[in-house]
């Protein structure tokens, strides 16, 4: 990599902010105790851990610090929330609703529960990329125990009406969990205001360290711990606490929350400029869910008649990192389940491109992307045996 890279895959992971790295440092070699030890080293670690917890609780407006459990990431938080809430108190049956375009870290435990006595409904979002509260209401039942709908979709960028969805869920006395890995710090997350019972977060999506996450779990809920052992985290998540990670998470969260409003304005402008440019310059190209409420940092593009991985690899060769929901990119044979869930036809879903902006994205980066992408698409379409036939001539 000689020329400066343009990293536009911030929805996949973010660079750890150097301020966050600095904030973690002392917890490796200085305050290195086990937070459960009684001696001074342990008490110092415990204090650091609880300090991080209180700061996270404050930033998401939890009602008390012990509603915040530190985990190893979004996946663990999701798994724990789904299975821990569903099976609490030894429960072995009940109706669970998850949206069809959840992350696999929610879908798979839902499926796991479905194989073990629970009845699982996959609720489809509408074509606008949004799960509508009316649609949820229609599938809720008397025996519904748990609903999980993500706050922001990682591929489309769409924001789900969590407050309404939680309210509808609560009307039926079920619990509501939201996977907020993508929204945290990008749009407001206020646990009390949203009225959720549980929420999942991931450190590496907010310029924090990988391998860190948080599960917000409202006080007083019955919960079966997923990681079992020493009984750490108020007996809700075992394993020696990662104090440096917790401090890193807290630091990352405070920074992103402090900068949120200005960043949202800045990124929305960049995103809109990109979308206009690319749709203006490429025909048979559109932005998914463009009219829905969206997070500022994600654009999901459909470029008809090309395959996503091919675009991705050409962009990469030109120094630009993006991602795609195309089948081929994932080692799977099917295009992204997210695009399928909004009824994007399989053929054109293969032409999806996700561009996700971040803290260090500049105007120049967007220009470079547009300048690189247009000829790449034209070249790939020219290579295609079916483009002319299917979509007519492409722009000169």
């Amino acid at each position: 990599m000689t020329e400066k890279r343009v990293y536009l895959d911030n929805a996949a992971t973010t660079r750890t902010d150097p301020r966050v790295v600095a904030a973690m440092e002392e917890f490796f070699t200085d305050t290195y105790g086990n937070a459960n030890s009684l001696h001074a080293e342990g008490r110092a670690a415990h204090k650091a851990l609880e300090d991080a917890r209180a700061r996270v609780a404050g930033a998401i407006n939890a009602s008390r610090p012990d509603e915040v459990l530190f985990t190893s990431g979004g996946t663990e938080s999701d798994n724990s929330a789904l299975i821990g809430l569903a099976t609490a108190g030894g429960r072995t049956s009940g109706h669970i609703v998850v949206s069809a375009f959840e992350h696999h870290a929610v879908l798979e435990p839902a499926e796991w529960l479905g194989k073990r006595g629970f009845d699982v409904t996959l609720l489809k979002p509408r074509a606008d990329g949004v799960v509508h509260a009316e649609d949820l209401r229609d599938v809720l039942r008397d025996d519904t125990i748990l609903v999980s709908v993500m706050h922001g979709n990682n591929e489309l960028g769409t924001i789900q009406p969590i407050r309404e969805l939680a309210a509808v869920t609560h009307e039926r006395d079920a619990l509501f969990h939201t996977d907020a890995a993508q929204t945290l710090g990008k749009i407001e997350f206020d646990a009390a205001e949203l009225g959720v019972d549980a929420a999942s977060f991931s450190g590496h999506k907010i310029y924090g360290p990988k391998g860190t996450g948080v599960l917000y779990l409202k006080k007083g809920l019955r919960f079966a711990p997923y990681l079992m052992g020493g009984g750490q985290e108020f007996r809700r998540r075992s394993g020696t606490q990662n104090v440096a990670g917790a401090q890193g998470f807290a630091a990352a969260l405070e920074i992103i929350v402090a900068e949120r409003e200005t960043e949202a304005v800045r990124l929305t402008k960049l995103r809109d400029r990109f979308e206009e440019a690319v749709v203006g310059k490429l025909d048979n190209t559109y932005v998914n869910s463009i009219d829905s409420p969206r997070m500022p940092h994600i654009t999901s593009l459909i470029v008809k008649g090309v395959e996503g991985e091919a675009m991705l690899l050409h962009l990469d060769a030109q120094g630009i990192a993006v991602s795609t929901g195309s089948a081929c990119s994932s080692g799977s044979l099917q295009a992204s389940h997210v695009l399928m869930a909004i009824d994007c036809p399989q053929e054109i879903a293969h032409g999806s491109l996700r561009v996700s902006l971040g803290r260090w994205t500049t105007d120049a980066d967007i220009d470079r992307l547009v300048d690189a992408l247009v000829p790449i698409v034209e070249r790939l379409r020219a290579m295609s045996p079916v483009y002319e036939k299917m979509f007519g001539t492409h722009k000169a």
Partner: protein
Amino acid sequence: MLYSDKVMDHFGSPHNMGVIEDADGVGEVGNPVCGDMMKITIKVTDDRLDDVKFQTLGCGAAIATSSVITDMARGLSIEDAVKITKAEIARELDGLPPAKMHCSVLAADGLRAAVDDYLVKNGREPISGGPEHVEHDEHGHAAE
């Protein structure tokens, strides 16, 4: 999901891309599950492949396998050309990720289809024996 340098070379600068306008045989194949589409056109003299060109809609592996098979097939007799296997294509590219092996099958199928088309157009029996069996490797979903 890492491609070899050879795959990336073929993908970045594919060989023999395009359509032979007065082709003697045309093979068009597609993998509807994956969305790959491939068109192979051939020019044949004395049952030998003078020229082979491809058009492909597909991922990096689809493009690279198309490109490399045109190199491999050029100059071969049609008998030898239809014997090119999935494994040989992958070997020629210094390997393919397991999940991408189906793309190399597609390239071989395209070439066979073109040869058969040439034979049938000339009133002869097709010789390819049809598409190579596509083994579906264990696939999963995106990891992110």
